[in-house]
């Protein structure tokens, strides 16, 4: 099967949101997705992109069939004050029916190349500990589990907490 890996364009936004929701469902947290196509479009394809996206599309079997988007990765660049630029892999997903064909490896290879080209010293992301297939997929390729090896825990402040912290103090 032929597949093509390319940079996402504004017209891909509906497919990106569809895959974001599919991944959230796989992670059993789909109720947490409140993002809209409008926000994805503004945030990724406006003056200041907050994310970058690559997608994998396949050509349908009949030439009359539309191309189908079957996988994607969303990433951005972050900064580690100890070693410099990092590529942060935010989302990475291949549709169930298209796994085991090398699409995921192809996406990772492309991102690793990009990381090297842009002088990033590492590629970082989070994985849910109960996601055995993914944990094994990354460990096989030499990834380090920093939560296990160094004791890092992921913390989050949600909107309500942010509003409270940003409010001026009473003093």
């Amino acid at each position, binding site marked *: 099967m032929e597949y093509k890996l390319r940079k996402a364009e504004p017209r891909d936004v509906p497919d990106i949101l569809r895959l974001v929701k599919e991944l959230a469902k796989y992670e059993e*947290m789909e109720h947490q997705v409140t993002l809209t196509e409008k926000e994805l479009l503004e945030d990724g394809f406006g003056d200041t992109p907050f994310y970058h996206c690559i997608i994998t599309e396949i050509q349908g079997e009949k030439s009359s069939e539309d191309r189908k988007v079957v996988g994607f990765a969303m990433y951005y*660049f972050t*900064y580690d*004050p*100890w*070693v*410099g*630029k990092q590529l942060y892999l935010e989302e990475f997903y291949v549709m169930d029916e298209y796994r085991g*064909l*090398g699409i995921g*490896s*192809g996406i*990772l*290879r492309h991102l*690793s*190349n990009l*990381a*090297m080209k842009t002088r990033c*010293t*590492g*590629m*970082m*992301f*989070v*994985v*849910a*500990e*109960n996601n055995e297939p993914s*944990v094994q997929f*990354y460990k096989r*390729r*030499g*990834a*380090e*589990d*920093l*939560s*296990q090896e*160094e*004791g*890092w*825990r*992921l*913390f*989050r*402040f*949600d*909107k*309500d*907490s*942010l509003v*409270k*912290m*940003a409010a001026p103090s009473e003093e």
Partner: protein
Amino acid sequence: MNFKIRRAAKEDCKDISRMIMDLAIYEKMPDQVKISHEELERDGFCQNPLFESLLSKVAEKQCVRLQLSVLNWNTPSRDFYAAKGAQDLTVTEGWHAIRFDGQNLDNLANEAPKD
């Protein structure tokens, strides 16, 4: 005591670099600090800066969340963030932080495609 919070300027990089090292020592990982104030100056204060240094940016850019990592043994920090309303997602949702670097990142970039 009076103190002032302001945006960092290029001249602050020597102090920022010193504090990064102080924090790394506190986190028991000083040998992992590989960049100096020169790189901070280059990466933070050039045409397209890679980082900005104020919490107010979060509200300004209409962000819905602020995410960070804390070491599991660092109880004062964990308590500080929890008191302000942060959740430990490693505990509540099972997230682990993963990294590919050095030779492993190289290998990934050079992996032969499965055809």
